[in-house]
């Protein structure tokens, strides 16, 4: 979720968080090869209890948060999901649920609706069950489609999300037709962000430039055709855009992510970043974490920026890109995001594009590596 809230509010010295991403659990029946969760899931089994999540929601609202996105892992695996959504709703927050609908999501739809869920996001991995199974590491495709249909039948808004990569990018027309058939309110065509498991599988997932250009044409035409009927989002991947993405609308500017074990992070990819270890809601208030913690202040402002960012005219637009991606690729979080064509380490991206030919997929797992 790296789109800024288009609120038009200027960045100030004391930014306000608008969006809380609540990753309730890393447990998940799916094993998607592009999952953004950290690789060492087997070492991250601790989960916050209900009382702590309720406190986090209260503190988030007090800080200015207006939206909560409940995600994971699979949030349905928490028995207190309805309670947490209910609390967020009663605080006046917009609530979004990112789920596969598995297990037994349809049995909980009425409860989720009663709790006040505002939007349900379901992702599909491909347009056929066999293609989807290859990516999700199990056969969940038909169950997901059934759940998505039930979301609409219940009168709830549906976002259909598709994470795009080499193996499904050529199916864009059929994803769009699927979204129309499901009467989705919103279709997110999101190119894979190469963090976590997706980085591990990058060589097998990265599409070609030709695939992307064609997909962009398809998406642009569909967006025009569906204007006013279905919201369609298509974002080019940063690996091919030659300018970095404005990750999270800037470090510690709008977004606040709480991981299942209570870690408070400015970005999905920040788990392994140096300086994040003590940033946890179990030991600190959300207010301190957001406003005063070293973690959230690490890359606020421009003082940390190296050249070419520091003197770049685009530095207020993209903030030097993603800190986590810079760290994952170069080992130095203060580097210019290598996806930028001006970055000293841009060769890493050029090489990755050239080498993107392997097809071995490594499935997300919570098992200890052997």
């Amino acid at each position: 979720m790296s789109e800024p809230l288009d609120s038009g509010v200027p960045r100030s010295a004391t930014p306000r968080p608008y969006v809380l991403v609540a990753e309730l659990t890393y447990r998940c029946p799916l094993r998607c090869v592009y999952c953004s969760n950290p690789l060492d899931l087997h070492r991250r089994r601790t989960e916050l209890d209900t009382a702590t999540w309720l406190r986090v929601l209260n503190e988030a609202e007090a800080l200015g948060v207006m939206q909560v996105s409940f995600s994971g892992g699979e949030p349905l695996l928490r028995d207190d999901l309805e309670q947490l959504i209910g609390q967020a709703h009663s605080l006046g927050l917009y609530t979004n649920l990112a789920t596969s609908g598995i297990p037994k999501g349809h049995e909980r739809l009425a409860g989720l609706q009663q709790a006040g869920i505002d939007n349900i996001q379901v992702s599909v991995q491909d347009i056929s069950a066999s293609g989807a199974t290859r990516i999700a590491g199990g056969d969940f495709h038909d169950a997901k489609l059934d759940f998505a249909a039930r979301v609409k039948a219940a009168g709830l808004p549906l976002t259909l999300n598709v994470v795009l990569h080499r193996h499904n990018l050529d199916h864009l027309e059929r994803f769009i037709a699927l979204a129309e058939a499901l009467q989705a309110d919103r279709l997110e065509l999101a190119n894979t962000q190469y963090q976590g498991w997706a980085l591990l599988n990058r060589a097998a997932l990265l599409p070609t430039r030709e695939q992307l250009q064609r997909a962009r044409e398809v998406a642009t035409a569909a967006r025009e055709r569906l204007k006013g009927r279905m919201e369609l989002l298509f974002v080019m991947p940063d690996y091919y855009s030659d300018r970095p993405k404005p990750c999270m609308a800037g470090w510690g500017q709008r977004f606040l992510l709480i991981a299942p074990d209570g870690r408070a992070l400015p970005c999905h990819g920040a788990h392994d970043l140096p300086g994040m270890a003590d940033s946890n809601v179990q030991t600190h208030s959300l207010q301190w974490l957001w406003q005063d913690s070293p973690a959230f202040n690490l890359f606020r402002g421009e003082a940390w920026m190296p050249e070419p960012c520091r003197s770049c005219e685009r530095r207020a637009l993209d903030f030097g890109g993603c800190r986590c991606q810079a760290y994952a690729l170069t080992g130095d979080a203060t580097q210019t995001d290598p996806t930028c064509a001006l970055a000293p380490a841009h060769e890493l991206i050029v090489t990755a594009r050239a080498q993107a030919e392997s097809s071995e997929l490594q499935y997300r797992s919570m098992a200890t590596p052997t």
Partner: protein
Amino acid sequence: MLTRAMLTRSDTPRLAGKVRLRFDRHSGQHLLLYPERGMQLDAHAAEILQLCDGSRTIAAVAAELAQRHHHAAERVESDVLNFLQQLQDRCLIEATP
């Protein structure tokens, strides 16, 4: 290619199912909230959307606002129509004829 759905004064608008209009106690302004996004509304925009509850036509919304603020009804109606068309294009409102 289908032509874009154009609103008329006799359409009855309301917020799309995924959209919530919320007062933001921190800024003292209203926000339009929808998946992963939000839009800060000025007082005029908020007032228009509060009237778009599925019970009034666009003409009736404009007439109500014109009366409240002692403005020319025609001018208000054209402003309201333009504003709502933008939201319609972004799937933030739904209108029934």
